[in-house]
Every structure is written in structure tokens, then in C-alpha cells.
């Protein structure tokens, strides 16, 4: 059980948060222009990395804000936390 540094509230226990999966997958602006395969790529395909992963987290039992987390899935070390819309830190 790790501790997440919510960019709005500060450090809180993991139980206050929920994970929203891989980050930086933008909803296509013009879905109607996409082929079935392109739409399926957006809809279904997600990475499952052992190591550094960019994730969306929601402080669901706190400020309810969404933000991004850079987490090493092999040891749960969190390398960075940043707000939605901010650029990911360069590795």
C-alpha cells in the first residue's frame, strides 16, 4: 500500500485513490473519421508495463481530482505526480 502525493491535497494513503489506467490516451477529436481498427486501438488497447508506467489516478475519497502518476510497477516507487494537462516529466 503506497502513499500518493495528490497535487491538490498532499500525501495520502493509497486507499483514498482509484487508478484510471494508462495515461495520455487522448479521446479522438473526430471519432467518425476513424476506421474500426483505429477506433479499437483507442478503445481497447492498453500497455501493461513492468517498470515505469504513466497512469491516471483519481483522489476519489478526497478532492475527487484526476491527475497523472509516474509509477514503477515493479516496486511501486512513484517517480512523479503532475496535474492533468501538464507535460509528463522527461524520463
Amino acid at each position, binding site marked *: *500500500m*503506497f*502513499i500518493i502525493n495528490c497535487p491538490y491535497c498532499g500525501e495520502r*494513503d493509497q486507499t483514498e485513490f482509484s487508478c*484510471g489506467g494508462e495515461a495520455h490516451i*487522448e*479521446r*479522438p477529436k*473526430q*471519432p*467518425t473519421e*476513424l476506421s*474500426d481498427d483505429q*477506433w*479499437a486501438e483507442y*478503445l481497447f488497447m492498453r500497455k501493461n508495463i513492468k517498470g515505469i508506467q504513466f497512469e*491516471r489516478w*483519481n483522489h*476519489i475519497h478526497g478532492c*475527487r*481530482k*484526476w491527475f497523472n502518476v509516474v509509477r514503477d510497477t515493479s*516496486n*511501486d516507487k512513484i517517480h512523479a505526480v503532475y496535474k*492533468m*494537462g501538464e507535460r509528463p516529466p522527461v524520463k
Partner: protein
Amino acid sequence: MSNNLRINKNNFIDQTVRISFKFNGRRLFGYKGDTLASALLANNIHLVGRSFKYHRPRGIMTCGSEEPNAIVQVGKDPALTDPNVRATEIELYEGLEAFSQNCWPSVNFDIGGINNFLSPLLPAGFYYKTFMWPASFWEKYEFFIRHSAGLGKSPTKPDQDLYDHQYVHCDVLVIGGGISGILSAKLSAEKGLNTMLINDKSHLGGSTIYQNDDIFKINNETSNLWLKNQIEELKKIPNLTIKNRTSVAAFHGYNYLLARENLTDHLSAHERKEKIRQRLLKIRAKKVVIATGAIERPLIFNNNDRPGIILSSSIKKYIDYYGVKTGESISLFTNNDSAYETAISLNKSGVKVKVIIDIRENSNSILSEKIEKAGIKILKGYTITNTDGYKRINSIDVMKLSKDGENVIGSKITYKCDCLGISGGWTPMVHLFTQSGGKLKFRNNDNVFIPDENKTPSEQISVGSSNGDFELDDVINNTVKNIKVFLGLDKNNYENLDIKCSKEKQKRNIWLLPSNKPISRTKPFLDFQNDSTAKDVKLALREGFKSIEHVKRYTTTGMGTDQGKLSNMHALGIIADTTGTNMGELGTTTFRPPYTPLTFGAIVGRNVGEFFDHTRRTAIHDWHLENKAEFENVGQWKRPWYFPKNGETMYQAVQRESKAARESAGILDASTLGKIDIQGEDASEFLNRVYTNAWSKLAIGKCRYGLMLNEDGMVYDDGVTTRLGENHYIMTTTTGGAANVLSKLEDYLQTEWPELNVYLTTVTDQYSTMSICGPNSKKIIAKIIPSLDLSDESFPHMSFKNSKIDNVNCRIMRISFTGEHSYEINVQSNYAKDVWERCIEAGKEFNITPYGTETMHLLRAEKGFIITGQDTDGTLTPSDLQMDWIIGKKKYDFIGKRSLYRSDTIREDRKQLVGLLTDDPKEVLEEGAQLVESLEKPIDMLGHVTSSYFSPNLNKSIALAVVRSGKKLKGKKLIVPMKNKNINVTITDTVFYDKENKRLNA
């Protein structure tokens, strides 16, 4: 009565307080300070249980949590009995009653013992191999296995004990109350750090606290006295918390640990009353010091499992700490110096040490000199090849080891003894270290896995023998040095202690000791609880198992309640030797939490019964109670299910309620529906994007039904949303979907459409909703709010008005989930019960009938309205539900739109919602029943029933179902095959009642 095995001198047992207890029905006595094990040994009872597979007699083998044999059932109260308790850990209390496990009919005569003679037939994997075929025999095998095997009995009644959870935050957590833990805690607390010291025993001091020989001295005091003073000082430090009888079960990432504190297990029944039994500590520590010590290894030789064979260091603790002799004539068998310490203690206490068998060719140390001076015989370079004695060891056979240790040579010597101490060296307790993510390294010279300091997670340190330091000077000096760096301390008092101790010079390790018999005819036990032998491990390797994790499972080595604390290292050693692998490369099996078993009570704490989950009640709940509602759980909500009158059944009540609602007036508490207040200048655009239909043109004061999809095109939720103002809407969701819908909408607003100026607020609890339906609903509303213009022109279907009942603001919506003319009154929840009672009062002359969820479901089914989550299951598109009319064809985009014309979603043979009528109108289908076209095998399943009722208003059975290609099948006959009959049905339209919607304006 046997000889008195209690010697009269020690500091830890209070011989003035005699305690009576029962073991297997026999009344016995011990003293305050005893464990069950020490008291049994003092009564000369070694035989305490039977082994798992062969039912061999087994005795107390250790003095701690690693005990594999002495596990007992405590108590016989069906609510409080506790299985699998280690006799070596439970403290004696007045009235303690314990029973042997895994033996039938008794520990002295056990029918399963016959397995011992069948043992050539019970090799590794026996259960897997034998009981696989023929499959139909399993039930017979199972009866036999369940009856003769198995550990303790579970309680059969609810646990009456209280359990607690507590969050703990500290600067430094020290795990282990031995000398290294005490020094660490003292250094930390003296620095002013908020420190917690956790100790799994009732007393501090580990094994040093009874190390009273003058070979071991610190600053010219014997080590036990020096440590005793340290503990006295420690107890005075205010910023230190000591938790005795507390065991860390799990060490997770970010220094989050779970520990179980035993508060009453050592007390008699009347002292326990009203007290909390166990407390689960949830600890978040800035820094963690692991000082969990080491446990002694057994030696693996033929028949090494007889009662009376005990770890050498445990014999020492029983004599020095508990004052109990484990035998009158004791031999010791060792590969290291620690058995010599035991010999010295026994010798001092007047117990005859017959012989020490040491597999080493040489052993020169201060300890060995002292032994030889005392005239105790040491056989160097020898091994034990066999033992004898069924319920208690009575002799050992000893032979000389060959130089390479592979064979025995010369002739056999037999020694009589009633107890054998064994020592195979020490295993650091690295469980918690590895649980936290640390990696181990192998130290070749004494064959131990120790924490790799380069692969240790940050903010933790291992010290003392859990870090591989086994001698007093190393333990103290390294602990002090490393803690100083770890905690950033200045110079301290412990850096230049004058420490005297014996140093071990020779080492020799043989994982599987040879015998004069071929291995196939020996029983060298590895895992004493699960009865796996060295033979089993070798067999597994021959049969092709290579991974240690597989060998472990195949042979069940290390899979008992002790989790192989004694046996794992030998299993690894034998695998490494047999396969010619280096142990460091082989690695270990995974250490998983919990380190020692946790009770379910401690895990759940207070979260039982009514505290298991939140219960949500509407503001009108008390009225429902007064009016004898039966309730249904919908998520956390309690909703009235139906209101039985005069002993009605549910069916009768629902039939009556449904008729009343259509014939005159019904009233429903709809407060549990989710309500989301939506405000902001882009609110209309936002609704356009989240619902399938168009919203921008909805006039202020109007309501609209909306369907919400997932991005995959499947129906997610539905409800009516009302435009309250230019930039202000109120959305209703399903009861169960409320929280998820809000989260999903927030997600889109925050992450995909941050440019939209929209604010969402949940107001589910703030507003209560009552729905009044039926042809007389209008008259009832007119009575309550005479000023309101209820004409169809002013207040048509799907519109809303702000109004007042006395001074209370309310929102009235004219919307309908029953197909009847109906109104929804929304008021602030604290006025809801009053408003509800006014409706009931005003409706009396119209026989207004309160109805619950069951009638609501029936009425909407008559109209073919779906319930998301009942008629849908996340695999149906709007088109599958025959709701194409709700798709805004002209809208460029909305959530899920693109998915509606994927190749899969446009298939015509998808399951689609249809209505069903039974050929026999009295026959009501079961929800979930399958639909087929013919009974010819193989039977093709076409779909299933999702909703089914007997409609009192139509006087026939109706149902909704999803059926493959259902839209095209109107009029088709299908069969619903049930257990004892086949029901014929016909596919129909989904709307059964008032197809023209005339009643909405009736």
C-alpha cells in the same frame, strides 16, 4: 506421577502461582509464566500430536512460532474454540483446555497410524497421483481423507470476541525484542524519535536474557544481567511504545506493516470478559528496523521426528527460562557450537548430558574447552544413523562419518537417552525483509541467506541475527554501528563496550546426513508437519520437477501452518546438492504474508454485523417501518419492497399495489435515485456529449429521458434530466449507478473536456423524491398545492414547475415510469416525511396505495421500460434494446457513438430485447431461464428471460427477454425448458399495456 522435571531456580516462572489446566481431558498443573508446551514438558508429556500424512507420533520440538508439531485445539466452546494454536506460544492460564489435533480416536491410539506402515505406498504427490482416477471415485476418497486427515476444527458458532483495528504512525518501528532490537529501540528513542518496539513474546530480551554463563560478558557483567538493566532503562523512555505479545504479519511497500497484538489470549475466561481480544495494528513507519532474530535448524537424518527430539536451543530455553528439564538423560547432536551452550546449561542444572555427537572433525572454542573440562563426551566426526522409540525416543545409533560426509564407516554404537537435542545451525528470519521487496544473498561459509544491503528497500535496515550476525560481539557492534548510520546518530555509549564471548572456528554442513541403510529404507523428515522427507524431494527431482516452487507444492514441503520455517533451508540444500546447483543461484521460495497466522477476527476487526457496510435509509424510512414495509437492499440503500396488509404474501401485495396504482393512485419513495446538479454555461453542450439524444433545444422547464453509453457503445445508465434554468440542470440516475455516473462524468470533464465550464454536485441525499401516479394523482396534487395550475396546457407531461408546500420549496416534475399520469415531488430531505404524510392524507379518499420496488418493476414492465442492470448487462446497445429512436442521428459525437457502427455492433444476430407471452397466461417464467427453439441436441441457446411478472392489469403473465436476432422474430414460438416441464412462449412487442400512451394524460 513421573519425576519432578521442574528445577527450582529461575527468574521467569512464578512458582508461587500454580495454574491448573487440562490436556486431552487430563488435569495438570503448571506455573504462571509457563507456556502450554513448558507445562506439558514439566509433566513429562512429549507426545502431543500426530503427523499429517503418516500419523506418526510427534512431540514438542521448539519453543516458538516455528513449532511444526505441537499445534493444538484450544477450548471446546463452539463459538470460541481456536484451532492450530502452537503450544509453544500460548501462555498458560487458569482453566486452559487443550486437545491434540489430527488424531482419531486419540493421540495414543491413532487409527491413521497405519499410514506409517503403508508409507512406501504414500510417496510425494501421492494424493495427486492416486485420487485423480477414476474421477467418479472422488467422493469416496474424499470421505476417507476428510475423516482421517485435517488439522483443527473450526468454530461452528459466531465469534463472540471483540477485535479492534488501530492506525499507528511512528518515526521508527523496531521489530523484535531481542538484544539487537532493544539496542536499536534505545538508540532511536534516546535520540528523541517517536519509536515503537514490537515483540512477539510476553517478555523482552530474546535469548540473551537467560544467557547466564560467564563466558558471555558485557562490561564485566554476564550478558543476561547487562541486558536486564538495559531493559529497565528502556522502559523509562517516554517516547517509546513497547508492544509485547505482538507479531508483525506483513511488511508491505512504503513501510506499511500489519501487526497483531494479543491482548487477552493469556488470560483466564473471567479475566477476558468485556476486553478486546486482539488488535490489528496498521502501522506506517518512517523507518523500520528488522531485528527478528534467527531460528535454529534441525538436522536431517533417519527417524529424526520422534517425540523427545527437540531443537538444542529450545532445550536450553526450557531449562534456563522455564526451569523445565526436557529429559533425564539427554544427548545432543550438532554441526555447530550452539549445542555446547545447551550442554553447559544442562550440566549446571544437574541434568546428565550423555554424549554430544558433532559432525565436525574438530571444534576448538572457549565453549568446547569448557565442555571437555566438565567431562562431557564429544564424538567428533560422527553422525546419528537411526533413532528408536515409538512414542518417545529411547536410543540413538551413532556411526563415524566418512571424510567426504557421503557415507558412514565403522561400527554402530547405541546410546540410551530419553531426549535428543539437535542443532543444524541458524536461519536468519528474513521473511519480513523479503516481503517488503528486499533481495537476499547467500553466504557460503555458513549456508545462510541474508539481506543484500545493496538490494534493501530504502528506509529500513536488518540487524542482529536476522542480518546474519550470530555471535554476541558481532550482534552488538554491528547493530550499534549500522543503526548509528541509519538514524544519523552522534557518538553513543554502546560503541566501546567490553564484550566477551566464545567464537566458533570450525564449520561443517551436510544437508542430508547419511545412514547405514539405503535412503529408500530411511525416514529423514524435512517438513515435520506435512510429513515430507528428503526422499520425497529427491523423487520429485527424478520425476522432472526443477523449480523449487514446483518441488515445494508437489511434496508439500513448507506448506503447513508453520510455512516451513524449519524445513525450507534443508529442502533447498538437498535440491542444490542433488542437481549440482549453487544454493545462491537456486534462490528461495517466496515468503508471503502473514509471517504467523492471523485470526479472521483480527482481520475484520469491528467491520461485522451492522458495521460490515453502510446502510442508507431515505428520509421517509420511519414511515415505511411504521407501515410494515418489507425492505429490499439496493446497493447500500434499504428500499421498501412491498407493503403487505393483513398477512398478504409478496405476490398478493404486489398484485394489489399494481392494480391500485393504475386504477386510482399509488405513491412510491423514489429518493434513492441518484441526483446530480449540473451547472455552468456549457451544461447543455456537456449533456449533448454524454447522452445519446439531443439536449441543446430542450426548453427551460422541460424534462427529457436520456440514455448514457459507455465508449464501447453499450448502455450504461438512464434517467430523466430536467432543465431548471438557462445553465442549470438536474440529472437523475439509477439508484445503483449514481456514484459511478458522477465519477464517469467528472472524469470526462476533468480529462477530456477541461474547456467546458460545467460543475457537477451530487444532491442525492439532499433531495427526497416521491412519485404519485394513477388517474387520481392530479387531484391529490391539487389538494396539497391548490395554487398550482395542473392543466395539460400549463403543466404538460415531461415538464417541471417550482412550487411551495406551505413555506417549503419544492420541484414538481410531471414524469412517469409507470405509464400513468404522474407527478414527482422533490423536496429538501428534512421536509420529506412531512410532505409524504400530506400526500397520504390527501390521497386517502382515493385509496392512495404506497408501493415498493417490486410493484414499480411490474408496472414499468407492463410498459416495456427497461431497468439498466436488470434487462441490460453491459453488452446491449440502444439498438439491441429497440431504442434506436433515442440516438441523435444528427449529432456529430457523443460518448459511445463511434462504437455503434463497429462491425460487431451492427451484426443483425446480436441478442436483442423482446417481449414474451406464455401460451398459458397463468404460467410465470423464471428470470434467467434460457430460451431455445427446439429440444433436439445439441440445443442452441438463443437467449434468456430478463424480467418476468404476472400482470394483474392484463390478467396474464408477461416477460422481457434478450434473444438472438429477436427484433426479426416477432410472433415466433420458442421453448423455455425447465427442470420438470417445457414452457411454450411467443415473442411479442416489448410494450404490453397502453401502447398508445393514452393514460399519461388520463
